[in-house]
């Protein structure tokens, strides 16, 4: 297999309170079947050989489902192409001599910890505020007692497919978390199990989202375009309707 060399301009920032900057590296022996994160592995092996600190980035499952990886490649979260995470971005998307600008997800609510690692704890706090159905262990009725039409189950799954990577926030010019929040709200709002807490859930999740410092939705749909799971912005209207209804009814 033929190899290529790519130039990588990657954000280096030693710690949250230190300044960061883009640093240029050349990475040799890149092959088309390599994923983007494997290319960064190769870069890091080069850095180890030189005794320099490696580029810190989060990565775990490397099959596009855990949502750990995420950085902005050439101005697009998770890089060029649709429906994939950075670990599923393959170097065949690039050609020999290309320059890749690699930056962390940027948002006030996602502070940079080091290099490409950011703190996405805000997402967990939003879920803790209401992104659940209160069902204590052991108290459930038989799973088939509640009939849920195939179409409803499918719609709920479409929303539940969110992997919480934060690319939606990273892509949005306002660093808005509305797609993430709406995916969770919609997932539970579609299902009969989710009805009892529907109002409380949406109000509390939106309140927490406000506190975390995300921006507002401008209905541009950049979020959907970069979403690895191609979560539809249609869920956003479920969030808006549920929220507006809840607030106007005085919840």
């Amino acid at each position: 297999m033929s190899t290529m060399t790519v130039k990588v301009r990657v954000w280096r920032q030693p710690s949250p309170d230190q300044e960061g900057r883009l640093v240029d590296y050349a990475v040799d022996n890149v092959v088309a079947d390599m994923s983007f994160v494997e290319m960064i592995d190769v870069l890091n092996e080069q850095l180890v050989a030189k005794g320099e600190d490696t580029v810190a980035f989060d990565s775990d499952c490397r099959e596009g489902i855990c949502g750990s990886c995420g950085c902005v490649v050439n101005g697009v979260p998770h890089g060029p192409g649709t429906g994939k995470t950075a670990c599923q971005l393959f170097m065949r998307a690039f050609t020999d001599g290309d320059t890749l600008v690699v930056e962390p997800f940027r948002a006030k609510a996602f502070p940079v910890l080091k290099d490409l690692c950011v703190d996405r704890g805000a997402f967990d706090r939003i879920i803790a505020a209401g992104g659940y159905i209160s069902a204590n262990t052991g108290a459930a009725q038989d799973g088939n007692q509640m009939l849920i039409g195939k179409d409803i189950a499918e719609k709920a799954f479409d929303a539940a497919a969110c992997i919480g990577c934060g690319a939606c926030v990273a892509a949005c010019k306002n660093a808005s978390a509305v797609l993430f929040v709406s995916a969770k709200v919609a997932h539970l709002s579609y299902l009969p199990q989710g009805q009892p807490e529907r109002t409380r859930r949406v109000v509390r999740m939106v309140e927490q989202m406000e506190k975390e410092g995300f921006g507002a939705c401008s209905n541009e749909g950049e979020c959907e375009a970069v979403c690895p799971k191609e979560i539809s912005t249609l869920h956003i209207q479920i969030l808006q309707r549920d929220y507006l209804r809840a607030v106007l009814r005085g919840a």
Partner: protein
Amino acid sequence: MKRILALLSSDIGRKALMGLTGLLMIGFLIMHMAANLLVPFSKEAYNAYSHTLTSSPQIYLITLVELALLALFAGHFVTGIVVTLKNWGARPVAYQRKDPAGGPSRKSLASSTMIYTGLVMLAFVPLHLATFKYGTVYEVATPTGEVRDLYRLAIEVFRNPLQSAWYLIALALLGAHAWHGFGSGFESLGVAHKVGLRRFGQALAVILMLGFMVVPVYVLLGGGAS
């Protein structure tokens, strides 16, 4: 009131308000534009229309409508500015490189510049009111009596190329604002995004823009010469 305040405590509520006010203003602009289209056809009809609006007893209703419009305008701008400032604060460190994502994204030049086109409107509307509503009052005799000759004022204003140019630019920006604003406004109110609705909004934006441009262009081309 408590509920309205609760609504205003979140971006979703603020954006809903912004969408609602924007859409209502578009509704007003449609009527405004339709009336303007009388100019090239009939000086008398145009003046009669404006006279009717400002005669008793309609004037009371119109004043109410004007107050409502002022409220819409103010509400739209205040929420717009508040939300924009917050949005800017949501990303304190900018990307070194940021590209449009493409695909299903609806991002456009119009959607990226809403605050700027909006700020131009903020400047434009008071000037526009000063020029026309509170501008020189010419009178003209009609079979039913003396009425304000708004037609003459319009012709005079737009005969000035600088004024016309400013209006054409402002109207283009208004069109851009409505291009994104119409569909977005509905979405902010919880109406599911539909391509058809968005396209309709964009068509409406173009029609509004072109419709409003008719008068200055008509005058620049020599129309209304006495």
